[in-house]
């Protein structure tokens, strides 16, 4: 984990409303594992005040890439960065997805920008010899991001491409038709999707890790600001930033939001 000013090398639009931002950091590039995130200070000013967390979406040499939509002041400032601008980055942070298990078939499920960690995850899974299938849900064909992914199955809300519906329904349909074994699901996306997927995975007895989002003040465990309710155990809450963002779906209770 480092904290450093880094140089932005590229900001580009990759799908309707979605951008990638690439920066140079040998340390972060070298040490990031799939599912980990970086906490970015978008400017030196005091409003917006806090850092913004983003999953590392891909690593290429010394270059680290994140994927984002403009949803507020912080991402708006990020979108305006130009090659050569500096940003301050803290990372890599958080507990990565568990990719070293016994399973053979990795099923990646991403809703919307939940696709962010899937490229780096795919790369690491393949390096371990896992077979990867990817189930992408997007609002429409224009919102799809498919770069560096494997065996892509698409669902769109408006039916403009692939399955007309969401990614959870898509993977359910898929597994009905392809009863594969030694499976592990890796998911990221809106809470509602993760809830539905968790319910399915638990009922189907499938191993499933989900990556959570949640407001964070620090990203490093010093503010206690990012609790998620745990199942059983002594402690009622886990911290998303240091005990997640990747959790086994049966270990936590997702709130309605």
């Amino acid at each position: 984990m480092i904290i450093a000013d880094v140089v932005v090398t590229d900001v580009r639009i990759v799908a309707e409303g979605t951008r990638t931002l690439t920066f140079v950091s040998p340390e972060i590039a070298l040490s990031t594992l799939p599912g980990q995130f970086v906490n970015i200070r978008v400017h030196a000013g005091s409003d917006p005040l806090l850092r913004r967390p983003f999953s590392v979406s891909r690593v290429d040499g010394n270059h680290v890439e994140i994927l984002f939509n403009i949803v507020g002041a912080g991402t708006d400032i990020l979108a305006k960065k130009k090659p050569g601008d500096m940003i301050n980055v803290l990372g890599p942070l958080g507990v990565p997805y568990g990719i070293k298990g016994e399973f053979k078939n990795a099923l990646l499920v991403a809703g919307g920008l939940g696709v962010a960690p899937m490229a780096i995850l795919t790369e690491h899974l393949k390096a371990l010899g896992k077979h990867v299938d990817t189930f992408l849900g997007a609002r429409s064909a224009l919102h799809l991001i498919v770069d560096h992914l494997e065996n892509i199955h698409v669902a769109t809300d408006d039916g403009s491409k692939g399955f007309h519906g969401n990614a959870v329904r898509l993977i359910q349909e898929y597994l009905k038709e392809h009863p594969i074994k030694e499976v592990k699901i890796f998911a990221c996306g809106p809470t509602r999707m993760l809830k539905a997927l968790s319910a399915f995975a638990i009922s189907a007895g499938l191993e499933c890790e989900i990556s959570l989002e949640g407001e964070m003040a620090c990203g490093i465990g010093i503010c206690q600001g990012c609790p998620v309710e745990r199942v059983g155990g002594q402690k009622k809450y886990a911290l998303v930033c240091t005990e997640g963002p990747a959790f086994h779906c049966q270990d936590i209770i997702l709130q309605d939001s």
Partner: protein
Amino acid sequence: MKNGFSIRGVDFQNRVFVASGTFGYGDEVKHLVDLNKLGGIFTKSLSWKPRDGNPPRRIVETASGMLNSIGLANIGVHTFIEKRLPFLRTLKTRIIANIAASSIREYGDVLSLLDEQEGVDGYEINVSCPNVKEGGLSFGTDCAMTAKITAELRSKTSRPLIIKLTPNVTHIAEFAKAVKGEGADAVSVINTVIGMAIDVKSRKPKLSTVTGGLSGPAIKPIALAKVFEVAQSVDIPIFGIGGITRMEDAVEFLMAGAVAVQVGTANFVDPATGTTIAEALESYGRQQKLNDIGELVGSLIVDKKSSVLQSWM
């Protein structure tokens, strides 16, 4: 140039500290920050038993600030002593244990247990806690109650006793006067300011507890006025807290009358803020040719005329 100062015989190597609840127990950031460069670490509030804290959502960003409603989630004093204090003891900086409780008795129990431990250099008492006996009304907005807690704890320790005052009162100086009267060695000014935010879409409060505590640069002017109010009317060492992000902010607090400062919310943006300020303050002192950073304390030049100007608003 002299950087340090002392309270009740305990020496602090410089005047920049990290505030309770904004730095964990120190070890979380040991790879990012040279902890030994701090004047001291105020721990997360400790209660007798571990506390889960409030349900999410606990954090809301606001204009140049943030609201929190952590609910004093903490590991409890026993685990602290067992698991965290050993590491803290190895540091060359002072450790002040911040204590939170829901009864006077709990305050006393936590303090007494800590008082048996080596490596705890003093106590900061968080009185912004609900008094269970009084239906959850905050101790800290009741002057008599705040004084009573102070008296009780004073009788239990000879280590420095610092009372952390809430800004959510009409006359904060009265509280400082009262705790000084009961033997407090210093006050910390300020804890967070009560605030609230609403999610218009869902028509719900953003925080699970409806209201929470406002901190960060937004409250700096408020904190500075409170420090000044206390410094003007009570002769007691003050730890200035509220929205400090830069060396100049720290200097403002010292000039207003604080003997030292605590960096809070800024740690979330950069946990090295405290050490950066400590270093910058030292350079500033040298550049200003001070013999002692302490010369800044209360050095504000207030025109006599200003005090007779009517403060109409």
